[in-house]
């Protein structure tokens, strides 16, 4: 069967194509449209998936949307009614939003693709998350937790998944928490309070948390209280999900925690106010971890299963993931490369294939590389047109290792684009991990971002335990950079560029079979430096999506302090003279 999965209309639109039970293409719309977190209908992503497989829309057996618009409308309308009359400001906006397009998504998909509506189906949002987490994981049986802001009604679900010997698959939901009681919305409200963009800045809260102490956790517990059955409930007096949709926190929240940070206000961690923000971040983070560990522990006891699959935006919280792995009693924790809404496109397509249409299960290749591949010849042409030194080389790994050892910063483009928010070795900026100065240089010259945000390392799997304190199952969690673990104390000074203030790192443990070229580069760098670890950050500038094509990589290279751009076997070097000329030559 040929099944297209689609997610979109909220944030992180994406499309994924499954043919005969195997993913063949998946890409986020933002990587093609170049609008970060593009929430529009993912037409470009759909077109690319179909083109990649040589299909036309008529060839598709089914198109699956990742959530049920009528259920979502039910929740939005009920929320407005429950908030009456206070919801009067948000009601027109919400209704225009839902009635304008979102409610009619089946018709929209059918008309955009030129197919009949009978071939378009919708499944529930958290089913998509669960399928993305479980059906892609190399496990036959696992407990499943999905947690995000909100889907239709559910905000957090627990269940189990089974792949049987006869080829059939089952995802069984046991129970759910419903809007407005949401761990994701709680964290997003704190994100907004700290002046970061919701659905984008949550990882900044996690980074900031390491600089603070959870001194306000008792106050946080007033916001989010446990229930007798092991779940939790939000005290809605502290939140305003209807009146202030963009922020979500109420005046009472502000009365409790003090004035919120303005978006443009820098965080100075030496100031009293900066420390207050860091403590609030640390408190929210600690409570989120506590709740997730509690729910996971209960589920492990209930199911007795050894594996846990985690999906939804909350699964991007690597600190919480690592705590779950250490404390909840599971032997392995699987987080897909795209646990957020973008990953739902693949989840929805797999769910339809395995469960809706009952096709036999097939193991999904255990990598995140489902997007477009770069065209190195184009890079060579563009660089030569601009008079920038560029050449093909068969010794590219050794040359790049030399450059990294000489403290050069490398833009690395290799193979199919990653599916998900992390750069896992195909669209990465690589640098030596040893010095704080390198981290500061990256922040200053390339990423232009806050000083409190750490950079992640990538390490060859064979050497991971030497440098990082991986818990049992930690290497698996770190496959897609989904867990934060301590850097071994004796290595922290030699890995200062990637060691966060609390001595941890969000490491990627790279198996040779997942990305042989980057693995070879790590080994080559290890031969030079004695440390087969590199700093690995996403290949993009602030406010832009990760690069897709070589043209985008090249324009990024031209605009920032990257010294060397590599795509396949093509190396483009930025000489100092040219760097200055680039900026001024036509002025």
């Amino acid at each position: 069967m040929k099944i297209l999965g689609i997610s979109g209309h909220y944030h992180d639109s994406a499309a994924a194509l499954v043919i005969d039970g195997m993913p063949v293409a998946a890409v986020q719309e933002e990587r093609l449209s170049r609008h970060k977190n593009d929430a529009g209908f993912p037409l470009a992503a759909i077109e690319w998936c179909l083109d990649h497989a040589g299909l036309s829309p008529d060839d598709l057996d089914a198109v699956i949307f990742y959530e049920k618009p009528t259920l979502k409308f039910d929740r939005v309308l009920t929320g407005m009614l429950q908030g009456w009359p206070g919801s009067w400001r948000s009601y027109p906006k919400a209704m225009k939003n839902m009635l304008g397009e979102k409610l009619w998504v089946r018709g929209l998909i059918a008309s955009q693709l030129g197919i009949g509506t009978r071939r378009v189906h919708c499944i529930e949002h958290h089913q998509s998350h669960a399928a993305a987490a479980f059906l892609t994981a190399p496990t036959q049986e696992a407990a499943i937790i999905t947690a995000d802001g909100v889907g239709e009604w559910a905000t957090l679900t627990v269940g189990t998944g089974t792949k049987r010997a006869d080829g059939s698959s089952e995802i069984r939901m046991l129970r759910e928490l419903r809007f407005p009681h949401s761990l994701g919305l709680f964290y997003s409200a704190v994100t907004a309070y700290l002046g970061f963009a919701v659905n984008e800045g949550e990882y900044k809260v996690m980074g900031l948390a390491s600089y603070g102490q959870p001194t306000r956790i008792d106050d946080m517990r007033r916001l989010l209280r446990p229930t007798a059955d092991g779940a939790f409930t939000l005290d809605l007096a502290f939140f305003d999900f209807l009146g202030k949709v963009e922020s979500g926190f109420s005046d009472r929240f502000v009365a409790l925690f003090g004035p919120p940070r303005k978006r443009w206000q820098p965080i100075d961690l030496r100031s009293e106010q900066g420390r207050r923000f860091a403590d609030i971040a640390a408190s929210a983070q600690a409570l989120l971890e506590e709740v997730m560990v509690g729910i996971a522990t209960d589920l492990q006891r209930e199911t007795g299963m050894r594996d846990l699959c985690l999906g939804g935006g909350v699964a991007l919280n690597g600190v919480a993931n690592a705590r779950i792995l250490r404390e909840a009693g599971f032997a392995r924790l699987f987080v897909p490369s795209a646990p957020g809404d973008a990953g739902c496109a693949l989840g929805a397509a797999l769910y339809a294939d395995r469960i809706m249409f009952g096709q036999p299960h097939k193991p999904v290749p255990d990598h995140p590389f489902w997007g477009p591949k770069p065209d190195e010849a184009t890079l060579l042409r563009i660089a030569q047109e601009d008079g920038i030194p560029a050449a093909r080389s068969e010794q590219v790994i050794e040359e790049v290792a030399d450059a990294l050892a000489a403290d050069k910063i490398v833009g690395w483009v290799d193979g199919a684009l990653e599916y998900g928010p992390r750069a896992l070795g195909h669209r990465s900026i690589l640098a030596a991990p040893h010095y704080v100065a390198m981290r500061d240089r990256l922040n200053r010259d390339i990423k232009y971002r806050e000083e409190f945000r750490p950079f992640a390392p990538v390490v060859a799997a064979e050497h991971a335990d030497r440098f990082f304190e991986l818990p049992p199952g930690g290497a698996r969690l770190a496959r897609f950079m989904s867990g934060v673990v301590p850097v071994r104390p004796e290595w922290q000074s030699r890995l200062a560029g990637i060691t966060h203030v609390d001595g941890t790192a969000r490491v990627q443990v790279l198996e040779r079979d997942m990305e042989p070229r980057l693995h070879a580069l790590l080994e080559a760098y290890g031969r030079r430096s004695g440390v087969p670890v590199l700093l690995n950050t996403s290949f993009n500038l602030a406010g832009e999506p990760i690069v897709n094509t070589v043209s985008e990589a090249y324009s990024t290279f031209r605009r920032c302090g990257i010294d060397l751009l590599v795509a396949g076997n093509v190396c483009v070097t930025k000489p100092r003279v040219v760097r200055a000329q680039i900026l001024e030559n036509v002025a």
Partner: protein
Amino acid sequence: MGAHGLQGDAPREAAQQNRSVAFFGDLFGMILWPVHRLIWADPQRRARKLLEFAEVEASGGRDLVRAAELTHDPVLRARYLVHARDEARHADMFQARGRALRKDAAGEAKEGLADWMAPGERGMEGLDMSREKDADLLAFLHLSESAAARDFARYARVIDKDPATRILFQRILHDEDEHKSYTHGELRRIAPRRTRRILWWARLRRLWKAYLRFATALAGVIAGVALTLQFFLLLPPFAWMAKRNAKREKPGWVTVDERAAR
């Protein structure tokens, strides 16, 4: 104009072409002069607008980067990258001044900003760069830069009690004039016989986009009024029922059976 500055007469010709358009722009500006003066008088509001302008400039810069990535013309690629760098620098300048004003001024600013105050570019007005031909994009950029230059000159004139912000506008205005000039020069280079036609077509497109913005805003207002009336006139009994049902819901987990029963 640099390496490809064929275009000794280009600014003059461009100015001639734009004269009639500029006349109406200036007339409009004169009519709105007291409004601008009032708006820019308040330091908090000024700060907010500058921060908003920073976002518009940053967005315009990203669009220009996209244009550089998509063009097959190496000269345009270089020009767009330099232009994008200028826009990013403007964004930084606006942001720095906006932040400084926020620090200086007492009290807290209210959130929100009227869209019509954004400078001429409006972040390229949502152009889909992948569908724009080089000539069309250059014409669009030229007109946008002209409008931005007019707007910034107008703002600089009304801010007489804040020399730092006035100087900021004047510095950016200088860059906008450069951009106006190079876009026209490049348009003449790549479409020498069609320059006028392309520019007029771009003007019509801008007009159409302005109409669409206005129509969308008007439709939004009408829909908002209708839905607000509906909210207060039709929903109260349903709201009562929804609130009653909400009180009956127990906190915590909802099992599959309970969910099916709902």
